[in-house]
């Protein structure tokens, strides 16, 4: 299998993730975009690991760690989202502008 196949898939997946992050109004959906990006990364890592036949299996290891990181991020992220929901009554980042740089002369 040519190496660039999975890499291309990962690239497109990452781009879709970016799109999702930028376009979604609901914070939870933004998080889903991030998940897509992380999956693209993992795809890359696993593909490279396979291609390199890495004795250290750094690629797979890092992919596993990334999954763990993603889980941690989601866990904390959802807590933050819930916090926002409790304090603001919505979870739309675009409507959170009370800290915008406006309090100037």
């Amino acid at each position: 299998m040519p190496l660039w196949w999975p890499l291309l898939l990962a690239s497109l997946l990452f781009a879709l993730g970016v799109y999702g992050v930028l376009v979604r109004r609901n914070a939870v959906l933004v998080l889903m975009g991030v998940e897509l990006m992380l999956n693209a990364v993992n795809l890359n890592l696993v593909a490279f690991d396979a291609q390199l036949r890495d004795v250290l299996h750094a690629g797979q290891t890092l992919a596993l760690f990334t999954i763990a990181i993603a889980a941690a991020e989601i866990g904390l992220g959802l807590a933050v989202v819930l916090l926002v929901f409790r304090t603001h009554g919505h979870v739309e980042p675009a409507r959170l502008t009370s800290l915008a740089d406006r309090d100037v002369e």
Partner: protein
Amino acid sequence: MTAVVLCLLGRPVLTAAVVLAVGHRSPHTVRGAAVAGSALCWLLAVVVAGAHLGDAAPLRRVVVETASVGQPLGIVVWVDPLSCVLLLLATTVSLLVQVYSLGYLARDPRYPSYAALVSLFTGAMATVVVADDLWMLLVGWELMGACSYFLISHHWELPEARAGAVKAFLVTRTADLGLLFGILVLGERFGTYRISEILSDLAAAPPMRDALWLPALLLLVAVLGKSAQVPFHTWLPDAMPGPTPISALIHAATMVAAGVFLVARMHPLFLVTPRVLTLLAVLASVTMVLAAAYALVADDLKRVLAWSTVSQLAYMFGALAAGAWSAGVLHLLAHGAFKALLFLGAGAVVHAVGSTSLSRMGGLRTALPHTFAAMTVGFAALAGVVPLVGFFTKDAVIGAAWEEARDGRLLWPWVAWLLVAAMLLTAVLTVAYAMRAWLLAFFGPTSPEHTGRAPHDPPATMRVPLYVLMVPSVLGGVVVLDPAAVLGPGGGADLLHGAEALTTTVLVALTGLAVVLLWRRRGRAVWPAMTWPHLPVDVLVERGLVRPVLRLAQVVRAGERDVVDAYAEGTEASVRGVGRLLRRTQTGRVQSYLLVVVVGAVAVAVLAGSLA
């Protein structure tokens, strides 16, 4: 002797300091100190002159100098006969003026500063004449100008005094740039700033004509400015609002004559640059006639005398241009005496009448007999009546010019002839304006405007100087018979010229006769009061220089705000503007931040890729 000279230089400064320090607290002390200081100066000058007049070896002494790289600066004195005679002239007139001022400014609250400035001026003049170092000369030279400025504006409440003072200072200071650059160029050419060394170099080395015209010309500019010659002639008449004793001291006898002194001092330099001398001759010719003509029509007695001074100074320059060093110097001395006499006399008249306008005088000979006598002597000396001093010195000058015209050693021939013609014409005009002023002031009907005031002769303090000055005005001619006795070996022999003397005498007599006849026939109406509100040169300067400069100043002021400041304001505004713009991007919407993050990441990657 060096110590005496230094005392001579330092004493006036000390006097000035004492006078200023005492100030108003003790008027008598001030007056005493001022006169005593001047007297001491005079005594010291006499001592110095006694030692160095005539054939005695000149005194040259380095008092102090900078021990540094390049050409050293320092206080270096050089006393020769020329210094001596000018010292005598300056200190004498200064002393007389101080005495005279006791009466003239008897009730003037500004006397302390006045006396201090006169004293300071004397010191400055002494510095100029004894200086060997050109920079020392420059210090004295400009200090004189500053004193002159303050003294002209003594009556600062008068607008014309303020204007005249500023004009005098600015014009002379502009011209002084010539001296500054002249000194610098001389220093560069000769490797020294010592006059004596420069002169001995000139005597030793073959003339370097091409190399020296520039410094000579530059010095000439300064000289023309200081001595109010064309084209700088307009400041002197305007300086007349100053107190009359000041006019006598500074604007007749000494400071304006410093220009002549400088040419005389540096005469060897000018002698090797005939083109500059020729220029001087031309300017002197123009000046003497022009100034005499102005004197003939001026209404103000002091302005008549001022124009006369300009004209007479031009005589001296004419003599020096013609190579007649001693004639020029002697006429300087003679003029110093009789013009001081005339000004002090005029001061007495003004003191009595309360005005300087000739049209407001008339018939004063009975009311002011002493003054009348003094003025008569003065005018006669000015006109060159035999056997007063003016006759001898003017004759020596005209004779020298005539010789130059005949022999043609220095000047272009036609210029020499022009000079002679101008001198003769000026001699005639001099008689005419002298008689006019004399007649208008002292003869004819009494002016109706001062009938109530009962003019009277001045007090003794003012009369004594008049008498003192009458002595050299009458008897000074003897010097001409043996100038070497006074001026040393450079003075030359007998300066009398028979033919020329006869010619001038005849001219003087004829002119005098004509004037008297006219006066007999028409009285005061002969001379309608003509006032020339603005001299053409002044108009030119006003329109071509002063106004543009002032306009430029306004432009600069506006430009400072709107143009030069613009870069600062512009930078500030653009910095602020960009800051505001950037702050607009801080919308608080996190996804726009993320957009920037992603775009930034791509940009960094692309940038790095393009560099790889």
